């Protein structure tokens, strides 16, 4: 059952990367090479195996010591009922039923080309998803991209339709060439948007909100997949080995949904600028050093009100002689998707019913960063190491949680179109300020959160990518 999704969710991204364009995702995803055919069929498949080392939770106590008077305070049955059950982050998404799973994680066929008779000034890009991931949580197949680009105005190319947002680097790059199997928790949780709607159920009990104000919600529609329907104006300018790029996108803030149902009446504005110094080459593995910054702002409808949602980031990437160094800092305000609470599949009463808590107001913040190094030490072999960290609800000491992950990876390039990747992720979730649990409710829930978060296990993933 594809219900609530967790930290390591997955989704999306992709874009064809023809071999003769630079590592400029705007060029790669929105434009065709000179002389391109009216249509080119292509795509990729990524069968993926995942094994979670984490097991069931066992330590939610029967009582805690009151921070108010030192008395013994009982922990509600609704929480203790989850002892013996496995937290969502130790299950394989999007199904969240097993700790181990082999699945066709992504299967994306597409077509792209130039429209005949336009002097190559109009091109298009269409891509579908048949894999089992957060984009297909409600339907077996979805369109992830459907854009037309008009290249008539010097310095202002115009792309219209469902396509990528000009966000952070992970959100923009094609997943078929991504150096890791899973996104960082940072990009996944802050940029791969979960659309939510208000939820109430008087027939069940729920974990109380005992810190900053949060709303009970449930997921609505597919994850955003770093995409939206809208109009993007962009272009790039070359001066010797320097390349400067800008992009501004106005979009309807509904993710991959074509309708306006998830967020009626609201729009996003997203912009990114980047500068690159090209050492040599082109294509998705161009050797260069690139610095970039981006910003996204808009509103989200929740019930009868709209709430401001902001995301922004800054980062850099270096690739030369097989050595890759990259890093990015991202921060967020408003519409912070906190987590399913408790973070389990529903086991029925008397347990608390898991609901998705979201911190709506723009005073709620989150931020984090990642650092990554990769070394292609032989033509067919590469090793990768990444650290990423996400702190949610940094505006509220009691609510703040930190997720950090070390990812050790290896890649074997069997051929230019077939690649095997193996990742081992050392994961941790912590309650950052236990000293901020100053009343009985906070002590109970904070203690439970610490126990549940402490059950997170490391994760092994193996994935084959076949590009056709």
């Amino acid at each position: 059952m594809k219900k609530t999704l967790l930290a390591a969710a997955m989704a999306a991204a992709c874009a064809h990367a023809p071999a003769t364009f630079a590592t400029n995702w705007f060029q790669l995803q929105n434009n065709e090479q000179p002389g391109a055919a009216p249509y080119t069929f292509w795509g990729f498949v990524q069968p993926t195996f995942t094994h979670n080392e984490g097991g069931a939770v066992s330590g939610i106590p029967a009582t805690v010591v009151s921070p108010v008077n030192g008395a013994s305070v009982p922990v509600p049955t609704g929480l203790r009922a989850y002892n013996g059950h496995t937290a969502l982050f130790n299950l394989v998404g999007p199904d969240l039923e097993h700790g181990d799973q082999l699945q066709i994680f992504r299967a994306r066929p597409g077509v792209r080309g130039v429209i005949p008779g336009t002097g190559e000034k109009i091109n298009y890009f269409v891509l579908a998803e048949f894999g089992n991931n957060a984009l297909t949580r409600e339907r077996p197949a979805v369109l992830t991209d459907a854009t037309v680009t008009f290249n008539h105005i010097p310095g202002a190319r115009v792309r219209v339709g469902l396509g990528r947002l000009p966000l952070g680097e992970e959100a923009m790059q094609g997943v078929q060439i991504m150096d890791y199997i899973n996104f960082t928790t940072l990009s996944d949780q802050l940029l791969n948007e979960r659309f939510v709607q208000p939820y109430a159920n008087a027939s069940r009990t729920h974990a109380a909100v005992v810190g900053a104000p949060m709303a009970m919600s449930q997921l609505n529609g597919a994850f955003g997949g770093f995409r939206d329907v809208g109009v993007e104006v962009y272009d790039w300018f070359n001066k010797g080995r320097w390349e400067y790029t800008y992009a501004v996108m106005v979009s309807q803030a509904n993710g991959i949904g074509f309708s306006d149902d998830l967020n009626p009446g609201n729009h996003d504005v997203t912009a990114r600028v980047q500068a690159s110094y090209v050492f040599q080459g082109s294509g998705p593995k161009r050797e260069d050093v690139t610095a970039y910054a981006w910003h996204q702002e808009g509103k989200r409808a929740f019930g009868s009100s709209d709430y401001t949602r902001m995301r922004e980031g800054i980062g850099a990437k270096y690739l030369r002689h097989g050595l890759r160094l990259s890093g990015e800092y991202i921060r967020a305000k408003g519409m912070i998707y906190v987590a399913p609470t408790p973070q389990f599949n529903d086991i029925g009463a008397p347990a608390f019913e898991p609901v998705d808590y979201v911190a709506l107001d723009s005073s709620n913040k989150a931020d984090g960063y990642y650092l990554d190094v990769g070394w292609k030490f032989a033509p067919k072999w590469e090793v990768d190491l990444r650290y990423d960290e996400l702190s949610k609800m940094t505006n509220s000491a009691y609510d703040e949680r930190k997720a950090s992950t070390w990812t050790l990876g290896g890649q074997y390039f069997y051929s230019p179109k077939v690649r095997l990747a193996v990742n081992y992720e050392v994961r941790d979730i912590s309650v950052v300020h236990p000293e901020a649990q100053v009343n009985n409710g906070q002590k109970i829930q904070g203690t439970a959160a610490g126990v549940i978060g402490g059950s997170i296990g490391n994760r092994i993933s193996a994935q084959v990518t076949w590009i056709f």
Partner: protein
Amino acid sequence: MKTNRLIHLLTAFAMAMTFASAGTQAMDMPAQQASMDKQKVVFQVSVADPKTWNLALNNAKNVQQELGAGNVDVEIVVYGPGIGMLKFDSAVANRIDEAVGDGVKVVACENTMKAQKLTRDDMLSSAGFVPAGVVELMKKQKEGYAYIRP
């Protein structure tokens, strides 16, 4: 039994003599002869099509694999509309590096570069240069290089 053992000994001796003789012949072969036997091939790339660039690089690699990299001199001469193959933003930049690392000589025509206002700084660091691509092809053919235009 004894007869069999004797036959084995004689056979082994004969084989040893055969190998020794062959080795001596090889050692006695003049260096010039060995050099003349070395295969040589030059490829012309003069079109602005990455498919042709990849084909030329594939051909060069296949020649080296078939004959042994030490047994063949391979040169790729790039000029005219094909000059983009050796520009810094070439689609096959990494493959050029790899080929040069494997002993393939890859050269750009400086006449073409001048016509297109390209300097050596605009080119791949692994590329070599010749004053005129066409003349280079003529010289190499005169030196006995096989000429291939993919």
